């Protein structure tokens, strides 16, 4: 990945197939402004094409992931401004990112911050994490998938409570509800996310990407058609070198060495 200078995010180098992106607007509690969104989406699009990158980790600081959208910026827009805003295009890049990504969340993940975390495939949270969709407090609704993803993650009762009242949940509640996969010390959420990312990055990349794609369609397909898709992907993977390597290594009682083919 070329050394590009960003203003709102910090992007690390490739380490064992993993790249860490940190949201970096500390004075604004990482509020997701359009420039931040633009930089992040450009970065994600590039990483999607970079064969050396297998898994991405996104995080904020130890104290805050992202406390919402940039309200000042948003308040200045009228309906046409919102219509013409490129934000929807940027969010779509995240939705279409084919590789696994993990969000390490400490502190506040509110509004757009919560929506960004939910775009990730796995969330690892610090004990101090707080999730919420408080857009209702501003007279609006979540605009980047919050109404759709939250209900799929935590179920109807809790999602309704959160979105309609604007109330937050803490890390333990998020774990119990299935929104996050693990809760740990805030100082360790990033390193644990990276550790997990490296494990994923060490697996056969084609299998990983197929698995992610199939699991995401589970919310949208009938079981029948999803099972058919799973079967097709299973058959497709039988044509890969990595499947052969994986099974041979198992039978030879040695660790596999995947090539990505």
């Amino acid at each position: 990945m070329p050394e590009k200078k960003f203003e709102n995010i910090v992007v690390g180098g490739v380490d064992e197939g993993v790249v860490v992106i940190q949201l970096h607007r500390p004075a604004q509690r990482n509020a997701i402004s359009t420039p931040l969104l633009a930089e992040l989406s450009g970065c994600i699009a590039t990483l999607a094409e970079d064969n050396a990158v297998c898994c991405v980790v996104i995080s904020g600081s130890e104290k805050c992931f992202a406390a919402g959208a940039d309200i000042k910026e948003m308040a200045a827009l009228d309906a046409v401004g919102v219509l013409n805003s490129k934000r929807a295009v940027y969010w779509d890049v995240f939705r279409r990112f084919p590789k696994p990504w993990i969000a390490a969340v400490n502190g506040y993940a509110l509004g757009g911050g919560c929506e960004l975390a939910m775009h990730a495939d796995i969330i690892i949270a610090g004990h101090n994490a707080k999730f919420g969709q408080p857009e209702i407090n501003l007279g609006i609704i979540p605009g980047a998938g919050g109404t759709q993803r939250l209900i799929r993650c935590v179920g109807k009762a809790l999602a309704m409570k959160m979105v309609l009242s604007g109330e937050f949940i803490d890390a333990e509640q998020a774990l119990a509800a299935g929104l996050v996969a693990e809760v740990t010390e805030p100082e360790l959420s990033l390193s644990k996310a990276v550790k997990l990312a490296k494990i994923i990055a060490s697996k056969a990349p084609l299998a990983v990407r197929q698995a992610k794609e199939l699991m995401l369609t589970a919310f949208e397909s009938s079981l029948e058609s999803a099972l058919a898709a799973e079967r097709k992907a299973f058959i497709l993977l039988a044509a890969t070198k990595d499947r052969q390597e994986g099974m041979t290594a198992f039978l030879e009682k040695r660790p596999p060495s995947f090539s990505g083919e």
Partner: protein
Amino acid sequence: MSYDTIEFLIADSVARLTFNRPKKLNSFNVEMHEEVRSVLRKVQRDKDIRSLLITGNGRGFCAGQDLSYRNDSTDEAKPNLGTSLEKYYNPLIRMLSDLEVPVVCAVNGVAAGAGANIAFACDIVVAARSATFIQAFSRIGLIPDSGGTWQMVHSMGRARAMALAMLGSELSAEHAAEWGMIWRCVDDDKLQQEGLDLAKHLSAQPTQAMAYIKRAINRATTNSLSHQLDTERDLQELAGQTEDYLEGVHAFLEKRPAKFVGR
């Protein structure tokens, strides 16, 4: 900065909070809650503060809620005590529990109602021999709050907790120490010095380790052993990254006293 209901000063990395409504036995009103909260926030933010000492002025430590503020006798003005806990007492207990520095409490006299349970929420509690802890709540038709029901059950067991809560009897400082509710009971005239010495000693300890110890011990009451082993693993990983750990090991090997900087 001057306060009306408390005294607060910082000296040599030790923050000292003294409840200061002696004529009301240091009972809490809204103003006192707000002042206490603001100094606890200061302690939270100021990395140079490495321990906190809490005590009271006058003959009592803290008598809990100032009941003269609860004298609403008309039906429509019935106070919502749940709201009071939500807004004032529960955040206070949570802040004490979450503070990343050791909190010493020197109980100089009667600790009644929430006053007792605020003391129990601190990390190391020393009490004057003449001090008493009273779960006075049942005497006015209430339950122990401010974490009292939890602290008592975890520290002294169901039988004692139930009796003290239902009977509202006095728990002497000596019994409190014997039963493991507090750390030490000391002679009245030695209390303030003991509290201050403890706070000063703790302020010279590896402060990050103190914070991690606090997290580990607080979680141990509810974790399974297996889960707690994971917690210890994670916290030890963090503690091992501190400068103070390196200093501690070097000092040990060089057979000299360690000088901890608190990070």
